[in-house]
């Protein structure tokens, strides 16, 4: 197997480049998501993907399993995406991308292969193929955009649904915790993994651009607030993402060759978090949530933040 670190130099020069850009990256004007998508109003997946593709550029293929993005791209014979999109069955995004990446590399092509899947296609039905592709050192970027339920089919519970959230299959609130897919990915020891949020597109842009400089499997987990699923009004998607980060419910970080760096926004939230209730209250999915459940959520947040803080501080 090729040592991903052999590309360190490429990666470092890109890193310097990002530092030169200071905190605001030069985001290309070119659009790869054209008008006339069939996304819901206020869809933050579309917002996230817009920046993903701006960072990836035109020499990119998206591999998309069944998910909201299968719908958003439009209806045959039209497509709203200006990069090739290969749609594939639900469980097989990572496996399909694995074959594609190998074929491109065998032909000497550097084309970015990005598997772009929802939480269902990643945490649930697609986890086996994804684990296999990471274990095999596949040269690709896997992005999970997480709206915390099966949005495409009308908001059924997924492994990504948080404790206490109502979905159409957990009408009184989910009784199980959200699956920690990031820890599962970390166990595969990829050269790069990160979390991001659609409400922070510059941060997302930088992380995608960085991920694509590594050889080997990389992973980005994007929180993607969903107005119809989370039951808030459509203009509040960015606000909702920011509340998730500020409350500590969602943590922005990167793990590069195993070394964790917590993002500035999340560091601020760790120091001085907003009350979790400020995040839960505007969302219909948490309406009537049991105070005991809120308490458990708070304890889990505290535990997670302590764990991440300790990991970052470790030599």
């Amino acid at each position, binding site marked *: 197997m090729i040592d991903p670190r052999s590309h360190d130099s490429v990666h470092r020069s890109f890193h310097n480049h990002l530092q030169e850009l200071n905190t605001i990256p030069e985001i290309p004007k070119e659009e790869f998501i054209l008008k006339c998508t069939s996304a819901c109003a206020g869809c933050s997946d579309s917002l996230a993907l817009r920046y993903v593709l701006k960072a990836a550029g*035109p*020499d*990119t*293929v998206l*591999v998309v399993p069944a998910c909201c993005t*299968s*719908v958003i*791209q*439009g*209806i*045959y*014979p039209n*497509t709203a*995406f*200006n*990069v*090739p*999109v*290969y*749609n*594939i*069955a639900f*469980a*097989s995004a*990572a*496996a*399909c*991308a*694995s*074959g*594609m*990446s*190998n*074929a*491109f*590399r*065998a*032909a000497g092509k550097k*084309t970015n292969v990005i598997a772009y899947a929802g939480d269902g296609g990643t945490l649930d039905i697609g986890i*086996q*193929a994804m*684990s*296999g592709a990471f*274990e*095999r050192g596949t040269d690709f970027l896997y992005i999970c955009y997480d709206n915390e339920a099966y949005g495409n089919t009308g908001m059924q519970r997924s492994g990504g649904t948080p404790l206490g959230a109502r979905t159409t299959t957990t009408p009184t609130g989910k009784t199980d915790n959200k699956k920690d897919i990031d820890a599962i990915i970390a166990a595969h020891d990829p050269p790069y993994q990160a979390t991001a949020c659609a409400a922070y597109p510059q941060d997302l842009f930088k992380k995608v651009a960085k991920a694509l400089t590594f050889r080997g499997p990389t992973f980005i987990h994007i929180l993607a607030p969903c107005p119809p699923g989370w039951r808030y009004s459509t203009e509040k998607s960015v606000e909702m993402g920011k509340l998730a980060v500020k409350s500590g419910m969602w943590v922005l970080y990167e793990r590069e060759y195993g070394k964790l760096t917590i993002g500035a926004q999340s560091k601020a939230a760790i120091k001085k978090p907003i009350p979790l209730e400020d995040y839960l209250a505007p969302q219909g999915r948490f309406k009537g949530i049991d105070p005991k459940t809120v308490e458990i959520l708070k304890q889990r947040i505290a535990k997670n933040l302590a764990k991440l803080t300790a990991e970052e501080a470790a030599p």
Partner: protein
Amino acid sequence: MKKISTGNKAVAEAVKQLVPAVVAAYPITPQTEIVEQIAEFVSSGELKSRYIAVESEHSAMAACIGASITGVRTFTATSSHGLLYMHEMTNWAAGARLPIVMANVNRSLGPGWNIWAEHTDALQERDTGWLQVYVSTVQEAYDATIMAFRIAEHNDVLLPVMVNLDGFLLSHIMQPLDTVDVGDFVPPIHLPHAIDVKNPTGYGGLTGPDQQFKFRWDIERSIRDSVKFIEATEKEFAKRFGRKYGFTEDYQCTDADVIIVAMGTLGKEAEVAVDLLRKEGIRAGSMRLRWLRPFPKLDLKGKQVVVIDRDYSFGRGGILATEIMAQTKEDVFSVIAGLGGQEVTYEDVAGFVRKRRMGEEFWFGVNTNV
């Protein structure tokens, strides 16, 4: 070059000569030797392919799909439960019009765990849009694999091809194998709908009811068109390499009163049974069905037909017998034999013919009155 080989190694040998860019496969008995042999060729540098050791058959087919759509040659091999596990993706491969070639080593389905020959695995894939050929010797496994690439990749076909060989009875049997210099018999692959980042295209997205049926019809049209191309390929193969193949392999059929129809190694047993029966004065013939999809027009007019199925569709009947009865008005005696690797000798096959009861179904080893 003449050598001795197992069926599995013969398939691997053919794959080595056709150099797929990507082989994605998962081991399963009795196919394993194919992928081990290919992995060996790749690691020794004899075969310049990328071998992806996927974590499941579902992923094997998905990886072949992902590779194939970039415009390169791909191959995989499986058997039994592996084939069924990839069923969702076999449909996808055909629907996406990808010329993937797969060897399937026919094996029974559980429970219980039975690793022996049966055709029910591949026959459960008959409605997917894959072309299916069934072979009866080690040599034929090799020849059919070479031809499969040429047929699948032809731009008037562009459908995946499954080469079926009987588990153990062929996969692990040593027989003579005459390898050939393939040369330009299989031209370089050119996939007209390959991914091109300079011409971004959406593949397999939302498709409405006013469009989907057109894609379905297009598969059917191509599979019908494939008939003449299969014939042309087999003719060209015979011309170049001297071995003749067809949709069926007919033995002593012309003057026969009764014809045995079977697939795979049972079809070879049937030829020996024919010789035996002819000595007894029974004018028998054997028509070994090679291509199940596209299903050929069989010339059975005026004959009694004994169909041997190494498979079954519960609640309906032997799958081959059902297909044949749908096509011909001739009387059929349907024999179900060899399930789960049950031993069926040419003596047994001769017995089916001697004691045939037209219009009836007979389970060998279960019904004792024949």
